[in-house]
Structure formats: C-alpha cells, structure tokens
C-alpha cells in the first residue's frame, strides 16, 4: 500500500447502553464524512469481532484507531485480540472528563450538549488520524477530496469559495455553516475570526492567505444565511 493510498481505520464501539456509545458512533461518522473523508474507513465492530477472515483483515490492512464509549474498552480489546495492536485508543468518557450527564442515547433526545460532545470527540479522532498519517508520511489533509470514498464513508460534497480569485472547495462547509448558525454566529463582519478558526480545523489555510479566506468565508456565510 503506497502512502497516497493509506487509510486509517476508525472503529467505534457500539455502546447501545450508554450515551457515550452514541457519541462515539456519531463522532466516528463525522470524521468519516466530514473531517477526514478521504483517508478514513470504518467497519461495524460486532461484525469485525464476529466476522470471518475478510473482516478480521481490516486492522491488518489499516492502522487503526479505536473509539470506546467507556473504560470497558470493547473496541480496543477486541481489535487487539483479533488483529494486533491499535495505533491509538480513544475513550469518550475520558475526552469528556466524565461529564456526559444530560447526554442522550437516542437521536430523539439530542441537545446542544450532545452536539458539542460529538464535535469534541470527532476533533480528537481527527487529530489522531493526522498523527498516524504524518508518522506514515501520508497526506494529512484531504479536505475537499471528494473523489475518495468507501462503502461506509461516502464523503459529503464540498462548497466552492472564491479566495482572491481562486476557486477553492471546502468539504462539508455547508454543515460547518449550519452548526455555526445554530450556535448563534451572526452573519456579518464580526464572524470572520470564528469562521476562520473553525474552517481551519478541517481545511488547511496558509497564514498568508488568512485575510483572503476571512473575506471569502464571511461572504459565503452571508450567502448561506441568505443575508
């Protein structure tokens, strides 16, 4: 497997009994769909643990990050038992410092706190992906790489921006805008720093281009909000 083809496996626990399991699952999907769509793949943990050789090969083909809801570490232990050591093991309850009171198991009951927890955990997963890719010499940033996909992780389409006359596609920008709008970010000139800081998490921005990106993002955010 060449570096350009390197994909990091992210295996979430199923965690049906606890809110942290739902957060683990949603954060994993967010990484696959939005944060690192071209360089991550996943598999259903129960299928992986109970599957045949084809499924078991998953972690031998991909450097793997496990994301467990609790300290029972089902994903980590299962993966290591069947396929060998994982590259990183994250635990939702640790990332959230045990503060998951008020979080929900079902999507029906999701609140802002659930969304923030998913954002926080997904960003930790993305950091772990980047660290693995950097160590492997792979490409860290593939935001906007809409061509890459697997059965589990068809990337979300990007949105095109005009940055200083240059066309730039940012994966999932519409979702980023939606989230910021839900968070109450005003669609005016004051939103520039927040837009820049948030988009930078998902899309590389050269410091020399910050001014142009800020202007382009404010304009696009206003258009998105139809202001």
């Amino acid at each position, binding site marked *: 497997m060449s570096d350009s083809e390197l994909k990091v496996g992210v295996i979430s626990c199923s965690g*049906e*009994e606890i809110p942290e399991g739902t957060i683990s699952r949603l954060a994993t999907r967010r990484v696959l769909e939005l944060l690192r769509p071209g360089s991550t793949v996943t598999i*259903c943990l129960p299928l992986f643990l*109970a599957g045949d050789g084809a499924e078991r090969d998953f972690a031998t083909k991909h450097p793997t990050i496990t994301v467990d809801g609790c300290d*029972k570490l089902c994903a980590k232990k299962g993966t290591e038992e069947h396929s060998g050591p994982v590259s990183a093991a994250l635990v939702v309850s640790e990332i959230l410092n045990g503060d998951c009171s008020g979080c929900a*198991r079902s999507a029906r009951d999701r609140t802002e706190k659930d969304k923030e927890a998913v954002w926080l955990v997904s960003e930790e997963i993305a950091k772990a992906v980047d660290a693995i890719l950097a160590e492997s010499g792979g490409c860290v940033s593939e935001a906007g790489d809409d061509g890459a996909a697997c059965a589990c992780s068809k990337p979300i389409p990007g949105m095109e921006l005009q940055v200083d006359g240059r066309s730039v596609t940012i994966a999932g920008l519409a979702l980023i805008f939606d989230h910021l709008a839900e968070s109450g970010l005003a669609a005016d000139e004051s939103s520039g720093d927040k837009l820049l800081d948030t988009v930078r998490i998902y899309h590389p921005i050269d410091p020399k281009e910050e001014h142009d990106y800020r202007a382009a993002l404010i304009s696009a955010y206003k258009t998105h909000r139809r202001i």
Partner: protein
Amino acid sequence: MPCSGIGKVHGLIAREAAYAVTDELAPAGFETLCLALLVSGDEEARARVREAECIAIDGCPKLCAAKNVEMAGGKVVKSIRVVDAFKDHRGAEPGTPTKLADDGWTIVREIAGGICGGCEGEVR
C-alpha cells in the same frame, strides 16, 4: 439487541427502534445491551442474554445481532431485519447513518410497534 451497524442508515434504524421500545414503549419490560460487549465475551453480558428472551434487530443480512446472541447462549425469540421493513416503503428516504429523516422514523415506529404492539407507551 440492535446491530448498531455504522455504515448504513439501517443500523441507525435498528438502534433507534430498540430505544423506542426500551425507553418509550415499555421501559419496564425491555432493556438493551452493548452488542460489542457481548461479542467481546464479557461474562456479565453473556449471563444477561442467557437469562432473557432476546429480540434481535439487524440492519443487514449478516445478522450480527442475532448470531452473536445465539453464540453467547441466548435465545432469540424474534429476529427482525430492517431491510425487510423497507419492502413496504419503496422509494423511502430514510436518512443517513447519523440522522434519520421522517421516513426513517416511520420505519422505526413500525419496527418498535411490531416488537411491542400491545404496550401502553407511545413512540414520539
């Protein structure tokens, strides 16, 4: 016991159908369990499925939930496949693996109702 498949919307429908039963329709009569914990061989989890009658809700034909309950020594009294529920909803737009649309919630309610049709609670 839902499969909680992560790759397609079917897994999320299975999961939400389980919650609809355990959290809304009949909390006193049903409970769920982490499938991964069961599959990983946790003794307490295995004991819980052996002591109960289990309903498996699987998203896809691989039937991970049903098979793993049986492998743990549990009795599957009903095995539900979400893909079968779609047969009555041709052209439905159920949502994504992370968010259900109205059609997805409709299927959730149907599956939950099929598990617990006589229960007193209501699914939102």
